[in-house]
């Protein structure tokens, strides 16, 4: 491989977010200097987002197994058994930063991404939820952010035709500079037809399906490097635009192909699209991968290998097809009018090899990319406990009417109807209960049966801020209670851990405390974590967001003749208070 000795300067390494010591490991594992494409690949694989380098060791503490767990964390989404051969596949994910930059598209692509995680595994998405945190209502940016985010979530979910059945919305000044947009998707599959990402077998064809690859979302480093910018007059936007129409076609096409036995492995192209999807598939399957980038469907001319590998264009999937089933795959995807191409094959080299314009542009061993990813034990300090409020110190209000008015007019308590009325809650005609009734959890019937899943998302950041451990416990417990309240047996949770900069010990302390508290609740309830996502560095000018471990819970209602809802109370009914 021809390369100039000086190609990778310390500045370029730094622009790629790799520390000096991380780059040392790259040099050591490769036994040479990487070229720019290879460096880009290491940088995204070892990014916080892909490698969970600050949180991995702590996430490992979570209870992740249980009687009903078919697949815990580690795949695109978690899978649980809901009897009769049915499985529920679900996950929650953040799209915080993109939504702050461009609220409509950021939120929309967040919904698209989480749905792909779910249907990648063979599930038809049946419900969406969203947990939103915004700044103060009178902050100058809040109004635009709220309306953009809500329109984006609705715009995507409504078009794809998956009901958005619930969520939560908070306003707090701690989110003025960093809003949180967490989306959860729940899908339904047959337990014996779940698809995984391990690319098994050598010589099997690799298919690319979905939208063409453009220069979307390729970050900083490329911008700075003139070599990669043909028309430098126009600074390239890093915002990705969602195309729910293509997503809908992808869902239908993938589910149609999944009903045959043509797919060996499948993975959606999320963050760092082609890079992380191909490496994860190869790593899990213990194989190598060779891709011919000339075959990648491209939206723009003159794309470099670097750009193709780092592009975050949306609505794309990578799959390993059984030899002999290529034509079947082409037929299905072409019927659904999707771009499709055979772009490579699995190999026995254990390497990721990329060819572009007949030249080898990348050749790196896969195992270090995945296994040697940094895994830090960042220093963490325990959050100092706050003094407990003494009830006696709080004066009784003189005017209960006024107190009540103040409570119900607070944006956090007030009706969220303005939001959920923009979401199609009824499509698929299995929504039994949703935001509309204000019940504690949404209820979605399993199509054609008399059972249902109950779904909720919860988190009270001010509790977590006061005491991460207790607050973490509370988030999990609240989902448990909300599911129980509608008559469901809680089964498992997903989570989205939104925190500030983990390199600050006090922030790391919040993260560790919350995880440990959540985990205690999980053990107490026998309520495992089956999937999740971590979003760190949510801070502006050194001001971190309130710690926000959003939890999504799923439970089963075995018999729809027995469930509870908020609607239906009549005057004269008896009210009963249970608990302390």
């Amino acid at each position: 491989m021809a390369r100039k000795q000086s190609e990778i300067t310390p500045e370029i390494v730094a622009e790629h977010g790799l520390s000096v010591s991380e780059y040392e490991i790259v040099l050591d594992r490769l036994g040479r200097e990487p070229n720019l494409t290879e460096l880009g690949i290491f940088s995204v694989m070892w990014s916080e987002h892909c490698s969970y380098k600050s949180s991995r060791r702590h996430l490992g503490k979570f209870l992740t197994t249980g009687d009903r767990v078919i697949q815990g964390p580690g795949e695109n989404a978690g899978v649980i058994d809901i009897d009769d051969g049915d499985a529920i596949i679900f996950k929650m994910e953040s799209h915080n930063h993109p939504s702050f930059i461009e609220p409509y598209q950021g939120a929309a692509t967040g919904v698209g991404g989480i749905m792909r995680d779910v249907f990648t595994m063979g599930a038809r998405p049946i419900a969406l939820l969203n947990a939103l945190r915004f700044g103060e209502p009178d902050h100058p940016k809040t109004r635009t952010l709220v309306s953009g985010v809500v329109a984006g979530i609705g715009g995507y979910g409504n078009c794809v035709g998956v009901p958005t059945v619930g969520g939560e919305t908070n306003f707090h000044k701690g989110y003025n500079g960093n809003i949180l947009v967490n989306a959860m998707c729940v899908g339904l599959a047959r337990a014996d037809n779940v698809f995984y990402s391990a690319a098994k077998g050598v010589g099997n064809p690799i298919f690319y399906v979905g939208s063409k690859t453009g220069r979307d979302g390729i970050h900083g480093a490329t911008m700075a490097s003139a070599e990669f910018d043909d028309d430098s007059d126009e600074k390239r936007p890093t915002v990705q635009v969602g195309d729910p129409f293509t997503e809908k076609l992808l869902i239908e096409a993938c589910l149609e192909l999944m009903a045959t036995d043509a797919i060996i492995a499948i993975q959606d192209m999320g963050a760092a699209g082609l890079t992380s999807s191909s490496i994860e598939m190869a790593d899990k399957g213990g194989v190598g991968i060779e891709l011919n980038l000339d075959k990648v469907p491209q939206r723009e001319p003159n794309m470099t290998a670097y750009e193709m590998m780092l592009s975050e264009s949306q609505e794309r999937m990578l799959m390993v097809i059984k030899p002999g089933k290529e034509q079947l795959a082409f037929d299905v995807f072409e019927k659904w009018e999707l771009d499709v191409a055979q772009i490579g094959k699995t190999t026995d080299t254990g390497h990721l090899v990329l060819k572009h314009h007949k030249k080898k542009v990348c050749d790196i061993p896969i195992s270090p990319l995945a296994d040697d990813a940094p895994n830090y034990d960042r220093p963490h300090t325990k959050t100092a406990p706050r003094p407990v409020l003494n009830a006696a110190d709080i004066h009784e209000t003189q005017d209960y009417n006024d107190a009540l008015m103040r409570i119900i007019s607070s944006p956090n308590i007030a009706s969220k109807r303005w939001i959920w009325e923009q979401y199609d809650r009824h499509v698929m005609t299995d929504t039994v209960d949703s935001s509309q009734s204000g019940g504690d959890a949404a209820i979605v019937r399993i199509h054609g049966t008399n059972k249902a899943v109950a779904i909720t998302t919860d988190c009270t950041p001010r509790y977590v801020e006061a005491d991460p451990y207790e607050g973490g416990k509370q988030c999990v417990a609240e989902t448990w209670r909300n599911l129980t309240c509608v008559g469901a047996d809680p089964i498992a949770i997903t989570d989205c851990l939104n925190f500030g900069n983990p390199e600050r010990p006090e922030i790391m302390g919040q993260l560790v405390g919350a995880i440990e508290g959540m985990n205690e609740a999980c053990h107490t309830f026998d309520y495992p974590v089956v999937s999740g996502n971590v979003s760190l560095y949510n801070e502006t000018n050194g001001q971190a967001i309130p710690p926000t471990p959003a939890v999504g819970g799923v439970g089963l209602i075995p018999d729809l003749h027995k469930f509870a809802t908020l609607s239906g109370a009549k005057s004269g009914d008896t009210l009963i208070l249970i608990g302390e």
Partner: protein
Amino acid sequence: MKALVYVGLKPGVLDPQGRTIARSLNDLGFGEVESALQGKVIELDLTGDDLTAAEARVVEMCEKLLANTVIENYRIEMRAE
């Protein structure tokens, strides 16, 4: 006075609408269509008669509301009529 504001996606931004339009024109037998882009035109009726001053204000309107400058470009055309 009138201002015509043309708003379109920046080069490189995915235009799903344009793509879909081009493909369906092809399907309808218009094979000569290679690609399509969809943009917006906003026509504003303005009071006053100082075109230059008005244009500066329209730029402000674009930045504040009419265009989403994260993903869109705009172009302004002023007319006296």
